[in-house]
């Protein structure tokens, strides 16, 4: 929550906001007429990729102009095919302060392109506000990153991470654990696997793997050390296209030669330089690149 930063945004946007919902506290903490919370959608029109990890956060600001704290419920109803991470978000809003909420909006793989609304209400009977969301079909074909947005799965995922963190388009290790990245959930237990699927066979000729590598967390100390890159064969068997041992680099590129056709690529982590966890910042898979 970077409430302070959002306050500045709010000051700019308030003048232009129409249809701000007013919610006079029915929550227990707010005595009648004292708690007064307004809701504003901050995120503008969202562009989501029609893939399991292609969602974007809907950012909602709740501002309490009253002298009493308030507990409020935001009811979130997506229009099909949109899906939201939450249907209700409840929070405390301090007096004369504001709180920023985020709800992830996504569209299932295969959804058609188009614009749809997410409807928000402050309180069960509050007035509706609509937020527009544009759905873009997942790209495919020459030059496209087939891994972007998943579907992705892992042998396990640490509780502070999301399995999508390695296919979210953010390969920046400086954002590790705050905005992006995948970290397995079983300390000092190997192998760990991270698997991306394409929904059908695709010819691929380039795989790019980013393991954790920043000034604070250099790959030589925190990155993957020993791992195999594998592709799924027609018979359900995994074939190793590259075997890496003793790695200390943050970015590695593999070019299957000849081009292979596969429905899925996975990284099998056998050891990390820290000996505890496997850490992937981004996995990219390309064809005709």
């Amino acid at each position, binding site marked *: *929550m970077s409430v302070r930063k959002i306050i500045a945004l709010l000051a700019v946007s308030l003048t232009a906001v129409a249809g701000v919902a007013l919610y006079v506290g029915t929550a*227990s903490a707010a005595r009648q007429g004292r708690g007064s919370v307004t809701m504003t959608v901050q995120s503008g029109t969202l562009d989501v990729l029609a893939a399991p990890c292609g969602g974007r956060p809907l950012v909602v600001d709740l501002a309490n102009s009253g002298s009493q*704290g308030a507990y409020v419920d935001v009811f979130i109803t997506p229009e099909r095919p949109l899906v939201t991470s939450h249907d209700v*978000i409840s929070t*405390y809003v*301090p007096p004369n302060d504001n709180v920023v*909420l985020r709800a992830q909006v996504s569209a299932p793989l295969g959804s058609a392109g188009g614009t749809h609304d997410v409807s928000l209400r402050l309180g069960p009977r509050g007035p509706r506000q609509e937020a527009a969301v544009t759905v873009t079909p997942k790209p495919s074909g020459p030059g496209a990153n087939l891994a972007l947005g998943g579907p992705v799965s892992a042998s396990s995922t640490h509780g502070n991470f999301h399995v999508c963190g390695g296919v979210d388009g953010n390969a920046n290790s400086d954002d590790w654990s705050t905005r992006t990245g995948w970290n397995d959930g079983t300390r000092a237990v190997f192998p760990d696997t991270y698997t991306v699927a394409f929904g059908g066979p695709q010819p691929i000729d380039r795989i790019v793997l980013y393991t954790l590598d920043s000034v604070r967390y250099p790959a030589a100390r925190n990155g993957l050390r020993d791992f195999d890159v594998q592709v799924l064969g027609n018979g359900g068997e995994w074939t190793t296209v590259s075997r890496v041992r003793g790695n200390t680099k943050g970015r590695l590129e593999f070019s299957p030669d000849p081009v292979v056709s596969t429905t899925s690529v996975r990284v099998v982590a056998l050891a990390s330089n820290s000996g505890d966890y496997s850490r992937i910042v981004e996995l990219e898979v390309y064809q005709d690149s």
Partner: protein
Amino acid sequence: MGRNVEIGPALSDPGRRRFLGYSGIGALALAFGPLQAEPSTLTREVSRFKDNPFSLGIASGDPLPDSVVLWTRLAPEPLASLGGMEPHRVPVGWQVAEDARFRRVVRQGTATARPEYAHSVHVDVRGLRPGREYFYRFKTGNEISPTGRTKTAPAPWATASAFTFGMVSCQAWFDGYYTAYGHLAKEDLDLVVHLGDYLYEYGVQTNGGRPDTPVPGKFHTPTIHLSDYRDRYALYKLDPELQAAHAMAPWLVTWDDHEVVDNYADLAHPSAPPEDFLVRRANAYRAYWEHMPLRTLEPTGQNMSLYRRFTFGRLLEFSVLDTRQYRSDQACGDGLKTDCEQRLDPSRTLLGDAQEAWLLGGLERSQAKWNVLAQQMMLSQVDFNTNPGQAFGMDLWDGYKPSRDRLLNGIVERKVSNPIVLSGDFHRSMAANVKQDFDDPASPTIATEFLGSSVSSGMDGADMDEFGSQFLAANDHIRFYNGQRGYMTFNVTPDTWNASYRVVPYVRERGAPVFTRASFAVEDGKPGLQADSKSAARGRKYLSASEVEPPEPLKGNRK
């Protein structure tokens, strides 16, 4: 923060009470909350629910000689938002009887499950008789809850001949099954004390410790909002072994850090500046109150008074502490530190001034034979370094040495009768002689500490591990170590305090047996571990440091 602290559980101004006390056997009385004008929120009887509304079980807690708090929450769809309830009030009937068949009902009434409290119900049942076993249940519509057993405290002047209680902490759902609770529920106890980490803020991954229980995607991220914490409590409370343990006896609960977020200190946490962090703390405290059998009023905002005192006749008195809400930020950036000067700064505090004064004042006035500090962190010094030079965990009492010295010296100065320290947090069992000066082997033992292991946090563990070997080697006052999961039981008489370390050899699979790994006795008037018996180890015998979940200060960067 500047908030008035409510002292003691039963002595607060009755005008502020949420519940109406009443007297007269068989009287029908209402246990409504304050009837604030909320015109948009109606009370509606619901006769049919989509599913069992008592899916999260029942509980009782905060026992007094004449009173106990009953708890439940209506959640016909426990993992759905708002538990699958519509946003209006629902009446919930309750009964307390002397027998499990409810032939001798002594109290009954109707409470209101309110949407703003996630349809949780807290009933402070008054007019009960001291030192008695009771049975309770709830009813809403056509649905009747399971029956719980509870027990009132003995009369203040009574000299109870024996008292038994259990002690638990640290129940990361994703680390393993609550087998320990299943066994605890079969013990015959007067009370269960929970020392915190009832809930973990971390995301629950479907491929984590309980692969047979898939969870919706909203559980994959850490808890931030009130709705996140509510949903997480629902997930944890769905566990039948946890429910059985709640139904067996009244609980005294306190929190540690994970009910909000790992290693927060007052309003300090690296995730957010204090003015933002207070929102998360307010959300977490509110959800904690909603889901625990607490007598205290519902919190409004980021503060909630939780420390309180319970007296069980002349035999024992519990001072239940809160070592999170008022503490100074961890010294020297937290973690494991050597030569940290800041930990010696006397202006820093673990309890906060008000709680510290309340604690010492209470210990001075206590009439009890055994005086128990029910709190979170290992109080005794834990030197992690077997070589010369000392390394201490900055989140533990070691990181607040003058605060601990004030407490220990205060206990000596007040000649407190038989001080006993209970602690959790550490995911391992230890027993220790509490020394007035831990660096001086000739220093007197002034109290006895029992560190209880986790119910599930830390996964299976092993009887001994590399850390345990180091702790025993570097700390002469630590007399026992076990690195597995479990709980403790205590059998207290005027002459002797008996403690048992009840251990389950594994939690990653269901159905582990329980066994007593070690027992210790403390004799009246002789602080320290006076006798012990041990059984053979079971499960994993030993884990090296790289194989075991490291103790807190070695876990790396805070989130």
